[in-house]
């Protein structure tokens, strides 16, 4: 199967569980399992190629200019990890079916799980490091969702947040490191980077890049000093812990270290940082794990410890170390996943995970006992189980490693780590399963249903098989090791054996196991010492750092962001002006290339009116009605200016938009206060004037500079003028640009307009359904109402005019392609005609005669435009390619039929729908506020007739 499918399957599959949620829990698990299985089988189809030692590649250019390509690579290392991720994933899915209770939203759980799975598979198959980073961040995000899955648990939320913070920070550091690496090599493709060991290690930026990448790996793989997040992530449901912390998430860091091993390892820096961190983590994790009472916490710290072990092995930089690391990854994934699942079983059946409350489960849960014992003994390093083999190899490697000039340091610490490791394994078996049967379990423990015990039991199979017959695993592990080593070193020839003879590693192993048993004997006194010993609490330190960062951020942001819009606007304006001034004063200025055209008296008169209206607005803006009239004048003058300056289409658009805008503002002003009170001080107004004048001068200077000079490059306008008729079939170049050359832009624009209208509708609905509704109903109008709501003259006039308006709109629409006009303008004109009906005859009357809802009109418009565009696909042309023919039907003249006209119909419909929906929404607010207007078409309100004082007086006379 193509690598793309393997990566994409979990992501697309993530849509399904949520959909299947209503179909029942089994259906939900079924689809998830099927999706995973499909990816798993797809992976296995590549097995023959991998076994042949070849690499499967798949490549699609995504953003080649950035070096970001969707390149996937499957070598034996990637195959190994993908096998673990998908294989253990399948077991986890089956296990989770039984584990999750009826209160848990199963669809949500499996959606997150599949997203996580996809991201993990993406990491191990990426050939492009930028792509790898994207998947890397996706695992951080999806693991956040998984860890915090039980949203009602505060520990879950805090643990998820901590995991996200730590791994997210590491991810950020890693982005920096990867970018440096890409810069050094000149390519972001892993396959290229891995060939450039000398180039990278000789570069002065090698050390920064190494540290940044290792930060990412260490945070992800919970290496000291970032180990503290992993135990807190145990608040997640057990299937998540089992999945994230045995085979996947925490192994991502290890994977990356292994992946980068050929180019990053082998230097003193790598050795010092990685080995030291691994060694500390291994010992520290093992010691803490011994004294944990929560089963999952014990396992969490043991995971930390084992990750440290693997990291240390990778750090040594020898081929044997890398092979031991790969072998231990395999072994650890099997026994640790089984142990986590078993911990979940105990929790599920006994309703507690506290070791102090357990004991004597040997007879009550025999099956679980067998599974846990085998897995834990493997972890402790008992012969004939797989953990023993890789631990021997680790001790062997440690024995040959000298750190800080001391040949003793690493072997001794490795033995101490193994000793504690054996101790907590024995404690796990001894304190949970042995001892007397108690009578105070929170629930009566018994072996779980098959769905819960089978998945861990399956994992025990490789634990035992590899332990007994290590030669079975040897070829595969060596294949993986070869892929880790690349060209940097040869695969070691050592064979996997249970008995190596009386080598030092054997004695170290014996010391560890015997010491572990002794440690368990003196566990209680040791625990007392441990409890009394002061030690730093990682969570408190972490919370302190987060708190301090938050306080710092608040101190910085709150004074700057104090919620005063006018301040932001002033700061923004000044910044823009200053930046512009800087550009002006440092850039090169050219001499004017155009001469000033003379301005006739008409233009001067228009300018005077415009400026007068603008200045009037500023001076009189407190009177809102007046300022509305003045802005109408400004708009009108701008429209006339467009006519004058050879832009008839613009003029018509501006003019019609002006009308609807004023109506809209009037509708709003119906509710808003009529006057703006004096609030700002004189000083403040002086300041604002200063800012405004600076902005005005700047825009004047900019405009004047532009107007007096020709364009630097050749404008593309000539192309449009030359091709408008030939290519677009229309003589109105503006319209042809809109519906043809730049049709895709226009398509986007009508969608924006439609969304704006729908937004207004949605806001109105929200207002009308909220507390505002009551306020509107009780609102007293602050202006006297008009005597007659629907004046007869206006009603008659608008109805007579309606067909005329429609005809004008139709004409403007049709002539649009060749004369000024088109869909936009026609839409606005028709809208105005309809608005007039609303204004004259009333909302109820008009709405009763409305045949199509405006949403539908908007939808029809966008769809028409869209389908017109899609239509060109059927003749193998790109989206929105237009075509036209000339036809002649006697006795009419020859006319043109263009697909662009159909597109224009879409524009027309969208504009009508959007404008009308906006205005209608505003009117609905108004309608709610006052008395319901009558169904009567025009004239006089009968109720007012009865109550009107005038009528009463008249009747009295």
């Amino acid at each position, binding site marked *: 199967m193509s690598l793309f499918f393997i990566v994409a399957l979990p992501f697309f599959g993530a849509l399904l569980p949520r959909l299947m949620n209503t179909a029942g829990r089994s259906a939900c698990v079924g689809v998830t399992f099927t999706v995973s299985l499909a990816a798993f089988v797809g992976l296995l189809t590549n097995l023959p190629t991998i076994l042949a030692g070849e690499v499967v590649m798949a490549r699609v250019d995504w953003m080649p200019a950035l070096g970001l390509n969707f390149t996937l690579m499957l070598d034996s290392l990637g195959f190994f990890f993908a096998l673990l991720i998908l294989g253990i994933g399948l077991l986890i899915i089956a296990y989770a079916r039984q584990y999750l209770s009826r209160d848990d939203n199963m669809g949500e759980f499996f959606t997150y799980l599949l997203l996580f799975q996809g991201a993990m598979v993406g990491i191990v198959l990426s050939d492009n490091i930028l792509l790898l980073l994207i998947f890397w961040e996706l695992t951080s995000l999806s693991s956040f969702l998984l860890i915090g899955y039980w949203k009602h648990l505060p520990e879950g939320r805090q643990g998820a947040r901590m995991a996200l913070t730590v791994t997210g920070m590491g991810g950020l550091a890693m982005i920096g490191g990867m970018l440096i690496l890409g810069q050094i090599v000149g390519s972001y493709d892993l396959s290229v980077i891995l060939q450039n060991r000398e180039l990278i290690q000789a570069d002065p930026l090698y050390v920064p890049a190494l540290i940044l990448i290792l930060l990412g790996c260490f945070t992800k793989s919970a290496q000291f000093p970032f180990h503290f997040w992993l135990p807190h992530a145990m608040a997640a449901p057990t299937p998540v812990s089992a999945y994230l912390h045995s085979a996947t998430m925490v192994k991502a860091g290890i994977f990356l270290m292994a992946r980068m091993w050929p180019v990053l390892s082998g230097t003193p820096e790598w050795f010092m940082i990685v080995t030291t961190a691994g060694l500390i983590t291994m010992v520290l994790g093992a010691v803490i794990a011994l004294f944990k009472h929560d089963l999952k916490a014990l396992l969490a710290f043991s995971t930390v410890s084992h990750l440290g072990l693997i990291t240390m092995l990778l750090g040594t930089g020898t081929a044997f170390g890398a092979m031991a690391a790969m072998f231990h990854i395999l072994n650890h994934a099997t026994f640790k996943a089984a142990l986590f699942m078993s911990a979940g079983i105990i929790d599920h059946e006994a309703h507690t995970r506290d070791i102090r409350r357990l004991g004597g489960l040997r007879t009550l849960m025999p099956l679980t006992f067998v599974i846990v014992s085998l897995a834990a003994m493997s972890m402790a390093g008992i012969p004939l189980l797989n953990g023993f083999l890789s631990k021997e190899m680790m001790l062997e490697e440690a024995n040959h490693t000298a750190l800080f000039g001391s040949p003793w340091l690493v072997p001794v610490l490795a033995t101490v780590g193994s000793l504690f490791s054996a101790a907590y394994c024995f404690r796990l078996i001894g304190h949970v399963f042995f001892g007397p049967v108690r009578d105070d379990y929170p629930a009566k423990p018994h072996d779980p249903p098959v769905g819960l015990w089978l998945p861990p039991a399956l994992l025990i199979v490789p634990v035992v098989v590899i332990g007994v017959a290590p030669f079975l695993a040897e070829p595969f592990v060596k294949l993986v090791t070869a892929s880790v080593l690349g060209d940097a070193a040869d695969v070691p020839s050592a064979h996997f054996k249970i008995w190596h003879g009386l080598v030092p590693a054997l004695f170290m192993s014996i010391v560890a196991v015997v010491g572990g048993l002794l440690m368990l004997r003196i566990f209680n006194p040791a625990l007392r010492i441990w409890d009394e010993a002061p030690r730093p609490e990682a969570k408190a330190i972490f919370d302190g750092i987060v708190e301090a960062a938050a306080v710092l951020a608040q101190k910085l942001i709150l004074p700057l962001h104090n919620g005063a*819009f006018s301040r932001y606007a002033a700061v923004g304006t000044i910044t823009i002006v200053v930046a512009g001034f800087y550009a002006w004063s440092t850039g090169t200025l050219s001499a004017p290339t155009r001469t000033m055209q003379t301005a006739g008296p008409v233009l001067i008169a228009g300018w005077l009116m415009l400026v007068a209206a603008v200045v009037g*607005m500023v001076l009189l803006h407190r009177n809102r009605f007046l300022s509305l009239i003045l*802005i109408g004048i400004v708009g009108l003058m701008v429209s006339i200016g467009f006519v*004058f*300056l050879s832009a008839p289409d613009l003029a018509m*658009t501006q003019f019609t938009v002006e009308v609807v805008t004023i109506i809209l503002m009037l509708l709003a002003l119906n*509710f808003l206060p009529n006057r703006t009170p004096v609030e700002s001080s004189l000083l403040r107004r002086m300041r604002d004037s200063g800012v405004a004048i600076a902005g005005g001068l700047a825009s004047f200077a900019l405009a004047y500079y532009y107007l007096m000079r020709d364009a630097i490059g050749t404008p593309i306008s000539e192309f449009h003028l030359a091709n408008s008729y030939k290519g677009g079939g229309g003589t109105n170049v*503006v319209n042809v640009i809109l519906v043809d050359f730049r049709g895709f832009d226009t398509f986007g*624009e009508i969608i924006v307009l439609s969304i704006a209208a729908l937004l207004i509708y949605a806001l109105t609905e929200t*207002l009308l359904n909220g507390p505002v509704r009551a306020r509107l109903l009780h609102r007293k109008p602050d202006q006297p109402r008009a005597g007659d709501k629907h004046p007869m003259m206006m009603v008659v006039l608008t109805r007579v005019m309606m067909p005329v308006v429609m005809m004008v709109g139709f004409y403007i629409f049709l002539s649009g392609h060749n004369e000024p006009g088109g869909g936009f303008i026609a839409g606005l004109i028709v809208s105005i005609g309809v608005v007039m009906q609303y204004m004259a005859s009333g909302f109820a009357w008009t709405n009763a005669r409305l045949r199509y809802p405006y949403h539908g009109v908007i939808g029809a418009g966008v769809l028409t435009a869209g389908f017109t565009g899609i239509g060109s696909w059927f003749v193998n042309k790109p989206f929105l390619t237009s075509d036209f023919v000339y036809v002649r039907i006697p006795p009419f003249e020859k006319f043109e039929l263009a697909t662009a006209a159909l597109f224009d119909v879409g524009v027309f419909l969208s504009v009508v729908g959007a404008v009308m929906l906006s205005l209608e929404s505003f009117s609905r607010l108004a309608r709610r506020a006052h008395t319901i207007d009558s169904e009567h078409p025009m004239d006089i309100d009968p109720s007012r007739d009865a109550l009107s004082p005038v009528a009463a007086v008249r009747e009295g006379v």
Partner: protein
Amino acid sequence: MEFLLASAIGVMTAAGIYLVLRLRTFPVILGISLLTYAVNVFLFTSGQVVIGAPPVLRDGVTVYTDPLPQALVLTAIVISFGMTAVVVMIGLGAFLGSNDDHVDDQPEIADDQAGGTS
């Protein structure tokens, strides 16, 4: 003529900025509208400004004005209507919801300002 155009843009911008810096929603919306005019005219003038040469092809005519800025400005005008409508709606909704049409966060007395009007 260029001077008149540029100064008109400058005046509209200055007035627009001044109104945007006011404290109540309505003048701010009017200010945004004025800025919209200024920006549209500015965009329009970024091509060559010619009198009496509309970009409608005719036989025998060779001088046309630049059609491209016109097409851009045409959609800009329609979109700015949509934007103004949304802003007005938000302003109106805020006023109806809180009886306050200040644009700035009010320190503590926001709810007491009955009507917020004079």
